[in-house]
């Protein structure tokens, strides 16, 4: 990474090349602090006729120039001799265009080294296409065929603790060699394979694989049964990603020359900023970044198993084919038509809907212009978020984190391992990011989408990335943490408000909770809210109030059924949202008529759409 005199940096351009849109932000030092000045965006140009990602970057930066009234680019290059009227000090970028990094991982035991390898890959920002293990139930020829068919960008091979038997990991090496894998992009280079297994097997692995693949050796990611060491593998993955995979995508070689520091994979950058938020506020966080092709979910939860100073465990998962444009049709297929339509307060023609979804898939940069289309897209977004979160909960289990100590007896306690670390009642904050959440015409819509898909329990603060700039701030925090933190706190995170949701079920209209909200000026608002309602209490941005919630004996607010909870709540663009629609499970009315009636009532209380205002 290049060295900079941070004090001299006063104007920064940061871009994120997404699979659909390229987003640019301009940050300037104003007095003593760094602030976001303006933003621009343009379609990502990996498609013909342009087929060069830098064209989209230049278009997005041109918007910055026009909006700020300064010159940033000359002859397709950033102006580096900065004056008041032109030029910048620093240009950085993240990217997920070109389909991101697609990997296969291999390990000896599915629930041990193979799982650790998957975590290393996910943490580095990859999509894990498949996990191969000696005990995964597939016969060798099936594994070989699978590697051949999938054509990953890279393979991470692990297995065996240092000093242990080399037989099993060597067998995996033989399988990879037999598959003779070819990279997905371009035939002119060898597929990168990173070996992070038993160090005693390095000689054998070299002998088997050296001629067939581009082999890179690093430290064992599971040197002993009780210890994970993921960071060396993650760093190798990122280096290989830049040198081999990204360099094959259209225009990336040019883009890599333009940036002042290495391009970071978007999910890696977003993960970094999410961890920072949890760290600064000492809270438990779930974050989501919903893109055009994939949806990433991040979580930071406190755990006794954690090894870091904060006692937290960070997890990231990626749902490779759940997204709002390229993958929209897959969301529709996976969630099912009924699940999507349950959020729509009117009847729609099913055949026409299927065509609409497919047309968005083949023309991914289009925008819903009609209200009905917006409502439909937001219904699909709820399902994409719900499915991604379910996947996250099932993967965020057991041994986690960069490095983790476990006892051998823990290793064999399978029941314990399957428990998710995601504890909704303890969760303090949900952070939404990505086009459909950050650019929803009304912030109320973002709040409702987050509630409907994540189903927060107890008291949970809801926030969104104001204009979808977390990826850029993530990479900026690597170069200039001070600037990144200042912009993040002042310009990025928007408080939507707080969701108050008792856990339990009853019949619509039966008593559920008594709520009392005490404002700073001493004013108090009380309400008795029956089951099956949404009630919004106004509480503005930067305002904090004290809330007392007394649930009936069927409901739990985190202190046990029927027990009172007193807490501080954050205000925001929406306010305090009391959601008594039930949890565990959450159900919408079965009859179409009742469902539409309820949706209309809730949407009106939330002032969700034009025509649905309080």
């Amino acid at each position, binding site marked *: 990474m290049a060295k900079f005199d941070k004090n001299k940096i006063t104007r920064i351009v940061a871009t994120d090349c997404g699979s659909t849109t390229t987003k640019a932000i301009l940050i300037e030092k104003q007095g003593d602090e760094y602030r976001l000045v303006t933003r621009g965006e*343009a*379609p990502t*140009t*990996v*498609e*013909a*006729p*342009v*087929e060069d990602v830098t*064209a989209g970057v230049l278009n997005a930066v*041109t918007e910055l120039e*026009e909006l700020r009234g300064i010159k940033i680019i000359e002859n397709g290059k950033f102006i580096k001799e900065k004056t008041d009227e032109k030029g910048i000090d620093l240009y950085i970028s993240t990217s997920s265009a*070109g*389909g991101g990094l697609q990997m296969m991982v291999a390990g000896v035991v599915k629930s041990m080294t193979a799982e650790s390898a998957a975590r290393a890959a996910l943490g580095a920002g990859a999509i894990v296409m498949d996990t191969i293990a000696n005990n995964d139930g597939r016969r*060798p*020829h099936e594994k*070989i*065929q699978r590697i051949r068919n999938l054509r990953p960008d890279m393979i991470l091979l692990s297995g065996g603790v240092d000093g242990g038997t*080399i*037989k*099993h990991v*060597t*067998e995996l090496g*033989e399988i990879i*060699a*037999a*598959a003779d894998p*070819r990279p997905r*992009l371009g*035939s*002119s280079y060898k597929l990168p394979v990173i070996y992070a297994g038993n160090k005693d097997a390095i000689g*054998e692995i070299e002998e*088997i694989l050296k001629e067939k693949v581009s082999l890179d050796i690093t430290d064992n990611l599971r040197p002993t049964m009780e210890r994970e060491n993921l960071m060396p593998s993650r760093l190798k993955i990122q280096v290989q990603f830049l040198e081999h995979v990204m360099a094959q*995508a*259209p225009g990336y070689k040019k883009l890599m020359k333009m940036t002042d520091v290495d391009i970071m994979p978007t999910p890696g950058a977003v993960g970094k900023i999410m961890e920072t938020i949890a760290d600064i506020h000492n809270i438990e966080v779930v974050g989501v970044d919903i893109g055009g*092709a994939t949806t990433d979910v991040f979580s930071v939860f406190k755990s006794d198993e954690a090894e870091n100073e904060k006692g937290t465990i960070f997890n990231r998962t990626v749902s490779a*084919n759940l997204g709002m444009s*390229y*993958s929209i*049709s*897959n969301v529709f297929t996976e969630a099912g038509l009924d699940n999507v339509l349950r959020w729509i307060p009117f009847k729609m023609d099913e*055949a026409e809907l*299927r*065509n*609409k979804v*497919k*047309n968005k*898939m*083949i*023309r991914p*940069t*289009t*925008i819903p*212009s*009609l*209200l009905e289309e*917006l409502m439909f897209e937001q219904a699909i977004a709820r399902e994409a978020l719900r499915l991604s979160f379910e996947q996250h909960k099932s993967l965020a289990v057991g041994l986690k984190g960069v490095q983790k100590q476990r006892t051998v007896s823990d290793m064999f306690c399978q029941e314990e391992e399957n428990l998710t670390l995601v504890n909704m009642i303890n969760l303090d904050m949900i952070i939404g990011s990505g086009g459909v959440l950050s*650019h929803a*015409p*009304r912030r109320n819509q973002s709040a409702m989408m987050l509630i409907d898909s994540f189903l927060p329990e107890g008291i949970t603060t809801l926030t969104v990335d104001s204009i979808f700039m977390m990826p850029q701030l993530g990479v900026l925090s690597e170069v200039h943490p001070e600037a990144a933190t200042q912009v993040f706190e002042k310009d990025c995170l928007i408080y939507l408000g707080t969701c108050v949701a008792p856990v339990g079920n009853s019949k619509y209209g039966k008593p559920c909770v008594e709520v009392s909200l005490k404002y700073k000026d001493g004013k108090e608002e009380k309400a008795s809210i029956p089951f099956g309602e949404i009630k919004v209490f106004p509480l503005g941005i930067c305002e904090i109030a004290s809330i007392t919630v007394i649930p009936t004996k069927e409901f739990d607010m985190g202190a046990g059924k029927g027990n009172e909870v007193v807490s501080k709540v954050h205000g925001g663009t929406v306010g305090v949202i009391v959601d008594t629609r039930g949890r565990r499970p959450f159900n919408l009315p079965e009859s179409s008529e009742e469902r539409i009636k309820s949706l209309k009532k809730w949407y009106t209380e939330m002032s969700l759409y034009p025509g649905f205002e309080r």
Partner: protein
Amino acid sequence: MAHAYTPGLKVTPNTVVIKERRLPLKGNILVKKGDKVKSEDIVAKTELPGNVVPLNVVNILSIAPEELHELMLKKEGESVEKGEMIAQSRGLFGWFKTPVLAPASGVIESVSNITGQVIIRLKPIPVELNAYIDGIVEEVLSGEGVIITSNAMFIQGIFGIGGETEGKLVIAVKDIKDKLEASNIDETMKGKIIVGGSKVTTDALNKAIKVGVKGIISGGVDADDLKNFLGYDIGVAITGHEEKGITLVTTEGFGEIAMAQKTFDLLKKNQGKKASINGTTQIRAGVMRPEIIVTNSNIDSIPKEEKTVCSEEEFIGMCVGDNVRLIRDPHFGEIVKVKSLPVELSIVESETKVRVVEIELEDGKTLIVPRANVETIEK
């Protein structure tokens, strides 16, 4: 903005088409620079490594891995026939020896004294690459493939299924708004590529396969019809590998959408000529759109000064007065005129604040739509 970037699909009567024909692995090139080739000519060939059959001989013989090399009758690199003995245990006092027979014919690729695994590589799979279009070999990519150039009519589709194929063009409907139904297809269309109007039905697709039609070009196709035809729903737009025995190229999208008049007229003009079509579509990770290519007879004199189609194209902008196609509701599929390009962001019905374009509909009414929802049409 000085210009508005908007994606557009190429529809042109005459352009220089450059096609890179690349082998999946290095192999032999059968043509040389300057050669005149026909679409069906084989220009390169190679052999893909055969599949492998792993066999754990150590487990079969109940021996230690380090004993394996001693007991192998066939060594690495040797050929074996199916049923041939490749290893044998020592037995008891030379009796009761357990044989290990080759489960398939091939070559012994590896014998591991760590895992006890013997890997037999089956016979290589030959791959032949044809020229795909009539043209001239412009360049030979040493051992990897060739670049072929040609003068051709070129139409980019929006979505398709099925891979490369070729056949004579037959117009099967009267008008761009006509549906292509089973009744439009008859035995005379065997081996042809047929052109429909606004959409193609499942029945028509099935009838086309029955008759032996090689490809169908249509304005649209219903998502439900395609699902019924394929037997599954397409979740992510990565296609081309379908093995239905037919290639489908849609020019406008999903649903019943009249084919653009210009596209239809161009196809009609080329009726009876040989067309090379490919339904392969990939919307992410290196975008590929389906295509229809009809090479001109005068491939001997390809004008060099023209821009190429498949390698690098001009940056398409949108100006006032241009015709554009609406690619999202309202008025999806209609061709409209650009009336103005406001610089400032505007709010549309969904309350989305976006860059917009003011357009004029056929009936003279005007409408504001997001710029992202229009597609340029070549002037």
